[in-house]
């Protein structure tokens, strides 16, 4: 801070503490004038006719410094009046002489300049002080803000670190769980299927090799053991193929639906080992799909279409496809027993078996596998059905863009 600033600063400090009401001003000015007059009266024997006005100057300047130039001028005029009336006994307004006029004017001018100067100084000091206060407040606010900002940054960083740690922990845990699940399902296959093989195998051997020693009821019990083991095995396989779909690595490629369907019809025994009449409206088109997952879904749909027919009825299946914007929808339609409306909502859920499925062998996993397999290929599944008339299951997959045809000659 410069010397001037420090001086005005100090001046302001003094002056800013005074009361600013009109009464306070009058009391101060009057008191100053009276006190000065009293001092002058005390000093009168010493001073004689000198310093008649000069002693009032401190009071004038003090008033100007404290209350501004108006109070300064008021005090100045007051002092002039007092000087003239008290200390210049020979003075009379009606016979004023040149020297007296000159003296009064010079007193007035000098005092006025000082009053204005002091008042300006005071004002600038006030302004400066205000500015400094403002600056201080602003800087304090800024400091507070930056401190708050820093704190919140720290909190944010802590949160981010926390989050990162949590994510890492969760990921590790998830990986662990997935690995555990894989071991789990692997163990299921090995350890559960082995006793199943024993149950089925030995029940079968008993039936064959000890046929003549078995009564009808004994043979029936053995058949029930065999069937139970078979069902449990199918269930295990269903759960496994369902969970395997999630773990399979999916690579979509452009597939010819006709050849995928042909492959399924030729290689899946649950489909080709039947006397089903299958009608295909070719060409079925192409789709972006994963071959083995698509084949699995299709074979499950075809297996259902073959299976869910009234007893002694030959299955009749129609396969056709339609293009729905950028997708291709493949329908597998049958004339089987159909599905009641209330069953349709749950039909794609794992382990769901419709009421009408009671008489048919199954695990309730087939359609769940279809849905999961198609969804993993970016597709959707759906069904329309009428009990007693048949069902129309469809799968919808993204359609690959047609390859450019041969150029026209």
């Amino acid at each position: 801070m410069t010397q001037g600033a420090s001086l005005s600063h100090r001046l302001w400090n003094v002056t800013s503490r005074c009361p600013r009401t009109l009464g306070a001003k009058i009391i101060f000015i009057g008191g100053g004038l009276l006190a000065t007059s009293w001092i002058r009266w005390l000093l009168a024997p010493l001073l004689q006719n000198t310093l008649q006005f000069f002693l009032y100057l401190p009071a004038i300047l003090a008033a100007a410094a404290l209350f501004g130039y108006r109070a300064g001028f008021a005090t100045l005029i007051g002092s002039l009046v007092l000087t003239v009336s008290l200390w210049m006994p020979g003075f009379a307004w009606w016979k004023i002489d040149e020297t007296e006029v000159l003296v009064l004017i010079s007193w007035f001018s000098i005092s006025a300049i000082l009053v204005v100067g002091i008042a300006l100084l005071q004002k600038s000091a006030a302004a400066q002080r205000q500015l400094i206060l403002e600056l201080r407040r602003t800087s304090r606010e800024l400091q507070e803000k930056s401190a708050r900002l820093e704190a919140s940054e720290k909190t944010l960083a802590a949160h981010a670190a926390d989050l990162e740690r949590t994510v890492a922990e969760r990921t590790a845990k998830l990986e662990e769980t997935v690995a555990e699940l894989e071991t789990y399902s692997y163990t299921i296959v090995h350890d559960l299927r082995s006793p199943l093989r024993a149950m089925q195998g030995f029940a079968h051997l008993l039936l064959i090799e000890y046929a003549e020693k078995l009564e009808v009821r004994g043979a029936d019990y053995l058949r029930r053991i065999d069937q139970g083991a078979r069902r449990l095995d199918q269930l295990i396989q269903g759960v496994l193929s369902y969970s395997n779909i999630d773990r399979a690595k999916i690579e979509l490629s452009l597939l010819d639906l006709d050849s995928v369907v042909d492959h399924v019809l030729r290689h899946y025994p649950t489909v080709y080992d039947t006397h089903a009449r299958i009608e295909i409206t070719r060409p079925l088109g192409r789709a972006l799909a994963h071959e083995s997952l698509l084949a699995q879904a299709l074979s499950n749909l075809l297996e259902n279409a073959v299976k869910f027919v009234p007893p002694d009825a030959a299955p009749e299946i129609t396969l056709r496809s339609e293009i729905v914007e950028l997708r291709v929808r493949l329908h597998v339609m049958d004339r089987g027993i159909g599905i009641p409306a209330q069953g349709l909502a749950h039909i794609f859920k794992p382990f769901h078996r419709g009421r009408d499925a009671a008489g048919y062998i199954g695990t309730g996993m087939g359609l769940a596998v279809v849905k999961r397999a198609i969804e993993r290929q970016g597709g959707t599944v759906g069904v329309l059905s009428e009990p007693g008339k048949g069902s129309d299951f469809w799968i919808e997959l993204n359609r690959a863009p047609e390859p450019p045809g041969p150029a026209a000659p």
Partner: protein
Amino acid sequence: MNYPITVLIAEDEESDYLLLECALRKTNPEINVQWVRDGVAAIHYLKGEGDFADRTRHPVPQVILLDLKMPGATGIEVLGWVRDNPRYRVIPTLVMSSSHQPTDVEKAYSLGANTYFVKPTSFETLVDLCEKITGYWSYGIKPNISPL
């Protein structure tokens, strides 16, 4: 087409072994089935060590059937040993398992398994499978391994 063929079966599960043996005998009554209960014993058998030193009672097999999951040495480990052995690497070796875990299938074939098959749950299917296996290998020319 029946002829005395020696099959070495490495299988820790007795029930599975009994069913397999039964199915094999149904397809070929002349078959000589040798059974070991784990992978280490399979290697001992092939080396002709300890209990298996007598080659008239425990001849060198023409076909080896390995269960995948066994205590001691797994089927894959035994397969690796067989394929690394200059004398026995020529023996047709089949791997059987309860699952078709893609990693297992890949490993078995990359180590030189002749076939990988999943043990069927139903006995009829097992008999059918055994018929196919013995039928196939009865037509195929088998390497001649002189006993040590």
